[in-house]
């Protein structure tokens, strides 16, 4: 049986995504027995977290903060070599990281933080549309790449962005594009699932 303090810590650890009761207990026992140095360091870093890392005020990516009172701006938004006229809209920071890993995105990002999903109580007013429009005007963005996931909610959000941006910035020179969906590189076609294969066919390009 765990003591009340140990149980409280286990419950806190179990609130992390992907961590259940048993894993939380394993983490706790490790930190108590062989990982006391890790526990101390982790505790200090976690306590300082709000002063060291925060969402970027421009795009929502994770940003490192040097001084407690400054605005958090991420490395991508600071990078002068990025094309400021090209803005990629993603649902979550995870998606931004995945696109960055590919290394071929030369513009900047805007993280929505959520998708339109009335079944989960998320309506259009929950989406940071005003911030996105402000960002487009400020940076004179010419192209928006909508990279929300190809789920029902992701598609609805993409359609909503297209309509809202058209309404707000109707006569500007803004182009709104959607990422393609298709078969993965280097794989055999036979391993593509039927939906991906169907999309690859309907989105085919002229040679």
């Amino acid at each position: 049986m765990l003591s009340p303090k140990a149980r409280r810590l286990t419950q806190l650890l179990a609130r992390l995504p992907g961590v259940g009761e048993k894993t939380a207990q394993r983490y706790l026992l490790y930190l108590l027995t062989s990982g006391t140095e890790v526990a101390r360091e982790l505790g200090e870093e976690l306590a300082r977290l709000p002063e060291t890392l925060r969402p970027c005020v421009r795009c929502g990516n994770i940003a490192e903060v040097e001084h407690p009172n400054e605005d958090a701006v991420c490395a991508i938004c600071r990078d002068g070599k990025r094309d400021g006229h090209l803005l990629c809209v993603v649902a979550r920071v995870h998606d931004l990281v995945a696109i960055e890993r590919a290394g071929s995105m030369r513009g900047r990002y805007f993280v929505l933080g959520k998708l339109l999903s009335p079944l989960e109580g998320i309506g259009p007013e929950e989406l940071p549309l005003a911030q996105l429009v402000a960002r487009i005007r400020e940076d004179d963005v010419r192209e928006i790449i909508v990279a929300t996931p190809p789920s029902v909610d992701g598609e609805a959000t993409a359609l909503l962005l297209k309509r809202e941006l058209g309404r707000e910035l109707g006569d500007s020179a803004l182009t709104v594009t959607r990422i393609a969906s298709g078969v993965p590189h280097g794989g055999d076609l036979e391993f593509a699932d039927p939906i991906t294969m169907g999309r690859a066919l309907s989105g085919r390009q002229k040679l």
Partner: protein
Amino acid sequence: MSDVPVLRELAVRELQVRSFRNIARADLVFGERFNVLSGDNGQGKTNLLEALYTVATSRSFRATRPGELVQHDGEVASVRASVEESGDLREQQVGLRAGARQVKIDGKRPSTLADYAVRTPAVIFHPGEVSLSMGAGSERRRLLDRLSLYLDPSSMAELESYGRALRSRQKTLETRGTSAPELGEWEALAVRHGLAVMRARARAAEPLGRMATLAFARIGAPDLTLDIRYAPGAPVDEDTYLAALAARRESDRHRGSAHVGPHRDDLSLLLDGRPVRGVASQGQHRAIVLSLKSAEVQVVGESRGVHPLLLLDDVSSELDPARTEALFSFLRDQAGQIFLTTTRKELIATGSTASRVDFRVQNGTLERTS
């Protein structure tokens, strides 16, 4: 069709059932043709058929939630089958618990559930299916969707996406009113996925209807013609469909569901040109159901290239002697593996005893008796 396709053999060799409904544990070796499960009512005969159907297709023909299949005092149910398809053995496994279902083929998870669901085709005949002919459209839509899975593997995902888009539209109507601008987005997506569902069902309805008409001519009344047509629940033209949704927002909000869409699809069944729901007798309804089921066997078998497993739950109790004989004559003509439940095994006329294996089912335990 002029040339009859050659179908490969498919059979469940062994089955292991754990904590599935009232069956705590069963380890069975089946015969390759007729397997007759007999016992009194409430002993677990249907549960065993359900375990077979679940390990074959990943789904039950009764429960909608995986947790309902778990034995009352258990947490996890599992069914494992070794399946032989034209000489090659594979192992299929389904694990079930409240809110979760896990499937494996030869120890590996398939890429999608739809992929698993079509590996070992099984067709169930059970007494509740008389609603295929007499009841509302839901059973007929489910029949079309089972077939669609074989003809168009993306149909399951399209149906799920359609449902989500439609529920999102309804929720938006209820919480934000009929002029919320994002209704346009949800309606566009409902139409996009709804049209895909309707295309898949139309593709399934064509061979189903053709084969059921032929089957009815054999087992129903020879002087009557059964005609089956897909009746889509929405306009098949995209713009007309979109306009129909947009025009009825107010009334859809009040009635709590959309008045157009494939959730209102049906198969229209006509006897000599008249809807069966008004004109058919009890016996004719049963003959229509049998025709639809034998057409399902054919469509599934031909699209997958194997003889489907046939599962018959207490069917002879529903039929008069003449139609029972017609059913067994149909079954003897089917080359595949067959599982039957009955309270009176002497009524099951399977022909030669060499191709028949008998099991006794009592209080959740099973025992081979021949």
